[in-house]
């Protein structure tokens, strides 16, 4: 399953689709604060279940989303094992649960909202800060590119992994990480050139 699905808007007519992008962004910010502030493994488990329910309610198929999140879930598992070793299982469940819940909530936003609308909402929300030197258009574009970068980086990671496996270097972290870092930086530069050439942000 393509990791790109994580960033893709899925047209629909659910309650969440009908809400304004600004409202959903604000709700996501508030929800993120609550998830991070609330402590304990039980609250983390509740947040994961609630976020998953919200995602299903938005029309996304949970199984497809989880398969698209495979790479992230592997990293979460590693993080969970480390945290369990360092701070015990309750803390591990809390950290991994919060992380997964936040990703599911963010995915709910991207599934129910076209990126164009997210950009408009960010630009609209930041307009009062123009007098402080903030360029709302640039921040809106950066926000969209950030959303786009997550699945794009996961795709590059999968390609780097395949290349390492093809060379018999599947156990070498260097063979996976070095090309990944180089390609992510190169992709960022190419994207910058492309935006520059298209006059976006001029």
């Amino acid at each position, binding site marked *: 399953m393509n990791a790109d699905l994580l960033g893709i808007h899925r047209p629909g007519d659910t309650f969440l689709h009908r809400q304004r992008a600004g409202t959903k962004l604000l709700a996501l910010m508030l929800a993120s604060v609550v998830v991070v502030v609330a402590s304990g493994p039980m609250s983390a488990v509740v947040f994961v279940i609630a976020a998953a329910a919200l995602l299903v309610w938005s029309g996304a198929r949970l199984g497809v989303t989880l398969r698209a999140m495979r790479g992230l879930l592997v990293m979460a598992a590693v993080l969970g094992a480390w945290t369990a070793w360092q701070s015990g299982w309750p803390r591990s469940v809390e950290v991994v649960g919060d992380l997964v819940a936040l990703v599911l909530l963010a995915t709910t936003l991207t599934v129910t909202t076209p990126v164009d609308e997210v950009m408009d909402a960010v630009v609209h929300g930041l307009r009062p800060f123009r007098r402080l030197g903030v360029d709302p258009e640039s921040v809106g574009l950066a926000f*969209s590119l950030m959303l786009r970068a997550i699945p794009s980086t996961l795709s590059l990671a999968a390609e780097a992994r395949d290349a390492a496996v093809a060379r018999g270097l599947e156990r070498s972290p260097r063979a996976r990480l070095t090309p990944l870092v180089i390609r992510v930086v190169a992709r960022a530069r*190419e994207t910058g050139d492309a935006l520059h*050439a298209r006059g976006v942000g001029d």
Partner: protein
Amino acid sequence: MSAISLEQVTVRFPTHDGDVPVLHETSLSLTEQRIALVGPNGSGKSTLARLLNGLVTPTTGRVLVDGLDVARSGREVRRRVGFVFTDPAAQLVMPTAREDVALSLRRTHRDKVDRLAAADAVLADFGLAGFGDRSVHGLSGGERQLLALAGVLATAPSVLVADEPTTLLDLGNSRRIGDLLLALPQQLVLVTHDLELAARCDRALLVRNGRIEHDGAAEDVVSSYRATA
């Protein structure tokens, strides 16, 4: 037709061993409808092409488009000169085809409904009707390059610079994109290793070691390149 000229342009790139010249004191006037840049890898073709859009600025000399100095009036020049890259994956920055074209239209279409309708119209013009909600990564190589072209031409530039736009494509898509490029009403500056495509242009320049080695009718320049490659 836009008037493009290079006046004594030199480009040097910094390296650990000092500045390396990649284009030497080049002066040109590009007035033909379809112009091809051919030459070996690393010869300076892409640098020459990137000068026209301001992606590279001259170390010395000037590049003028319709009398505008590219280094001083980059924003105005980029509205006149569109640029298509070899790898459309780097150029397509939005998740879906419609959103990517709409990104180009943000400057000219402030209203969102108008913008999305205009994006759909552009997609239809390029044979991509019905692709609006498709992920850009779910498209084939040919479809991606078509979409990259659509995103650039949506703002109706008067010049299109294309840097090896058919290199990553199979034979069928390469012909399809090549035919489309040569039929555009815009002035075209085409960097290519496809010598059949280059020969169909009005003029060609053979770039080698950072210098224009041959400049003339496309078929003559291509023959010269074939003989010396």
